């Protein structure tokens, strides 16, 4: 019996492959969840201690703060060091040789920046009365170290930040997976598969039905058991954190720094999420709030269930694929075309891994709030849904009407969109007009030296555009630039090109105009040369004027070439990163940024990866809409 025959008759291969899919994907998911829980456990423990520190020093003076911080660090050996930064000052530090209080050093500026970042995040959350920006920041270091930074409060007001380094390496992983268990299930499925023989002829085949039911039972049993294990771990973690909380709180109570609340209904401000909101699972007296814990479990299950359903659906599809003989046919087809698949595979794999995977990764990223600072957080904690898109598209704070006139908000998406549209239109119009005029001139009959002009005029296109951009940046230099020299030569004042919104925009337009007219020129010239001369001659005989010939012969015949060229150059200009980025850099204060440079700056200067990904997704949507109309326009012109 051939393999392909075998695939059609026996339920065994289908069972095996589908079960492997379900089990491998399932254990990957549960493994990731376990790792996530483990991470969260460590981070919660660290945040617990950091919150305790902040609460304990909230009502004392600077000297008292230093004393308390020092003593508390000794109480808990896993707290490796604590520093408090207030404004430009290092207020307290337990690191030996730090000598607090003192001014921050130059190389410690990141701490100052971080303090401002957290302050703004807090203010945003307050101002909007929604919790959007995280105010507690957790960095995972190598070797299981955690650095927690959170607002340091004095008298209930934001006064700076407290940064604690915590040794989180000492926690054993949750009890290892019961490894033989999935294998036992797999064997059960294989036995069931081996026992079943299918009749290929019949549509309703009891063997297929039994196989399906057996498969579903085994898979659902496995998944239920794993969810149970997850819940177990969540509960264990809560209890471990509660124990830790009680131990630490009692110590602080004894020292008189922070009274332990013995009220079971009291709010526990130690165990908070990254927005400083109490989780509410552990009460102030260290007992577990059952109701809140049930909610916590439901939230986790609510995240995991849809994924499990997707896996189940997929696995069942695979099983049916095998049971109904498609696998056998696919295998036969694969054998038949094996050469083709081998030839295509390398390129296809490359594209999948380096184009399509990053693409979907980017889209997923857009629905989180990932930044450089919270990458290590569990994925579930970063997921925020449509928040980024609402922030980008729903922000209509485009200008402010003040007494001194209108102040535009250059950071707003719609401002940037407007700049981009104006930028694109201006450049395409300039490119097409110059290209058209030059092409008409070069197409003059009997003109000598055409080839030389053509080569010289093509040069701007041939030079790498980043070099062009930097050269023009030099020529627009406000002090020594050639362009200002020319202005002064004719008695005009020099212009500080990059300081004004309009003048800065013009630098970009000049540069881009310079490098984009040759393309249009060459394209139009090619099209002009393909117009038969007889048409003009006939028109001339008929007495058509120059204008009439242009209007009724040249332009209609250029259209099929011109429209694709314009369509292409719109996309190029829209995405012309190098010119904006290298000539004006979007100066002044981001007013001349176009969408793509703005996305870049959000990602690599503000480190807001997720926000930038959402921004790019919006750009992609705009291009998609444009592409849709473009194909319609091109189709319409083709029918001419």
């Amino acid at each position, binding site marked *: 019996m051939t393999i392909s025959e075998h695939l059609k008759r026996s339920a065994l291969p289908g069972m095996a492959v589908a079960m492997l899919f379900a089990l491998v994907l399932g254990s990957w998911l549960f493994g990731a969840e376990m790792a996530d829980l483990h991470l969260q456990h460590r981070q919660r423990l660290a945040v617990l201690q950091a919150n305790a520190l902040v609460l304990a020093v909230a009502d004392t003076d600077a000297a008292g703060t230093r004393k308390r911080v020092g003593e508390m660090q000794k109480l808990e050996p896993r707290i490796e060091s604590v520093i408090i930064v207030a404004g430009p000052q290092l207020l307290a530090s337990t690191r030996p040789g730090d000598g607090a209080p003192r001014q921050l050093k130059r190389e410690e500026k990141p701490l100052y920046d971080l303090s401002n970042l957290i302050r703004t995040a807090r203010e945003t959350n307050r101002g909007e009365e929604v919790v959007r920006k995280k105010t507690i920041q957790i960095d995972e270091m190598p070797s299981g170290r955690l650095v927690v930074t959170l607002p340091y409060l004095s008298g209930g007001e934001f006064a700076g930040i407290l940064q604690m380094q915590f040794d989180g390496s000492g926690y054993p992983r949750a009890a290892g997976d019961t490894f033989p268990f999935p294998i036992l299930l797999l064997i059960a499925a294989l036995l069931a598969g081996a026992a079943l023989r299918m009749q290929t002829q019949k549509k309703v085949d009891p063997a297929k039905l039994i196989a399906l039911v057996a498969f579903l039972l085994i898979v659902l049993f496995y998944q239920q058991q794993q969810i149970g294990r997850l819940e177990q771990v969540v509960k264990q973690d809560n209890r471990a954190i509660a124990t830790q909380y009680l131990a630490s709180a009692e110590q602080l109570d004894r020292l008189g720094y922070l009274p332990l609340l013995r009220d079971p209904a009291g709010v526990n401000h130690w165990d908070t999420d990254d927005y400083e909101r109490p989780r509410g699972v552990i009460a102030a007296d260290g007992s577990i709030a059952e109701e809140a814990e049930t909610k916590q479990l439901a939230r986790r299950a609510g995240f995991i269930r849809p994924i499990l359903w997707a896996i189940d659906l997929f696995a069942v599809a695979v099983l049916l694929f095998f049971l109904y003989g498609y696998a056998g046919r696919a295998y036969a*087809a694969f054998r038949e075309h094996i*050469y*083709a698949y081998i*030839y*295509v595979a*390398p*390129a*296809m794999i*490359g*594209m999948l891994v*380096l*184009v399509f995977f*990053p*693409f979907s990764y*980017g889209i997923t990223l857009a629905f989180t709030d990932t930044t450089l600072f919270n990458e290590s957080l569990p994925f579930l904690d970063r997921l925020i849904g449509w928040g980024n898109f609402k922030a980008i598209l729903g922000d209509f704070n485009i200008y402010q009407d003040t007494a001194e006139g209108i102040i535009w908000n250059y950071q707003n998406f719609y401002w940037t969109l407007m700049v981009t549209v104006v930028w694109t239109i201006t450049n395409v119009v300039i490119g097409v007009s110059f290209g058209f005029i*030059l092409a008409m*001139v070069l197409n003059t009959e*009997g*003109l000598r030296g055409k080839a030389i*002009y053509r080569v010289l*005029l093509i*040069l*701007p296109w*041939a*030079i*790498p555009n980043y070099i062009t951009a*930097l*050269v023009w*940046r*030099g*020529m627009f230099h406000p002090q*020594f*630039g050639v362009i200002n*020299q020319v202005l*002064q*030569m004719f008695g005009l004042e020099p212009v500080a090109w990059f300081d004004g919104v309009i003048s800065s925009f013009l630098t970009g337009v000049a540069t881009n105009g*310079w490098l984009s007219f040759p*393309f249009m020129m060459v*394209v139009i010239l*090619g099209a002009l040369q393909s117009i038969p001369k007889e048409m003009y001659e006939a028109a001339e005989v008929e007495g058509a004027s120059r204008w009439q010939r242009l209007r009724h012969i040249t332009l209609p015949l250029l259209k099929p070439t011109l429209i*694709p060229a314009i369509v292409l150059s719109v996309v190029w200009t829209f*995405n012309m*990163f190098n010119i904006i*980025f*290298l000539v004006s850099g979007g100066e002044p204060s981001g007013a001349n940024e176009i969408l*793509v440079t703005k*996305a*870049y700056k959000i*990602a690599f200067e503000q480190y807001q*990866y997720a926000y*930038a*990904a959402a*921004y*790019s*997704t919006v*750009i992609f949507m705009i*291009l*998609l809409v444009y*592409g849709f109309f473009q194909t319609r326009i*091109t189709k319409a012109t083709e029918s001419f």
Partner: protein
Amino acid sequence: MANMKTRNHIWLHLGLISFTLLAIYPVLWVLALSFSGQQSVGLIDLPQDPSFLERLRAILPVPEHWSVKNYTEVWTEQQFGRWLWNSVVISLMTTLLGVFLACTAAYAFSRFRFPGRNTGMLMFLVSQMFPGTLMLIPLFIIIVKQLELGNTYLGLVIVYATTSIPFCVWMLKGYFDTIPYDIEESALIDGASRLTIFWRIILPLAKPAIAITALFSFMTAWNEFILASVFMESEANYTAPVGLRFFVGGFSSQWGYFAAGSVIVSLPVVALFLQLQKYLISGLTAGSVK
């Protein structure tokens, strides 16, 4: 009548010459700067209150003193040689990898009718629509942060090669389609294997198209700035574009080194471009109509 035509041409020539001078002025300016032997952005030190003629002299693209100092020092004093080497290696590796991947895929798409063929070709076309910035952030996170391939040749090469694949595949497929199938058929009858046919018959026949795709891949990698600036953080690993920006971006302004470096980097691509422009144009416009 004839007299009028010539006069028209004189005006046309005047217009064309002045426009051409204006258009190639930046090029002349960079050349002058590169041979000026100094680093400032102005070609000439102007006196306190310069006259019209002195200013005119300052904008003329002719250096005050001719010197090749910038060209020699950019190799000896600066790391430019190293950056150029990085660019050469990365571009060559990209070309090799890109052309290999594109050739095999294009051959299969051209010669075999197999299930999934149309989907595959559509995938290549669709991927062209993904904007660079949308890819930049995930690629940065995946390649630099997760795979830790930042500051390596490999990281840039695999990204460049895959981004150039779709264009190359479509271009090569078009060319393979024009090679008659009879040749292969008779070779098959003679007992040649598919691999032999691909190596011994198809590739030699497709040499011109392969050369164009190779040059296209090479130029993509050679001129790329954004990904390289994000991937290559340490100075020793810069590619030429990132290095040239380094000369004049931020706080440094070594315009002389920049100019000399730019001339060195541009010369090969400009020469290639002028040779190949007609293929590029037909390729581009054909692609956009499809």
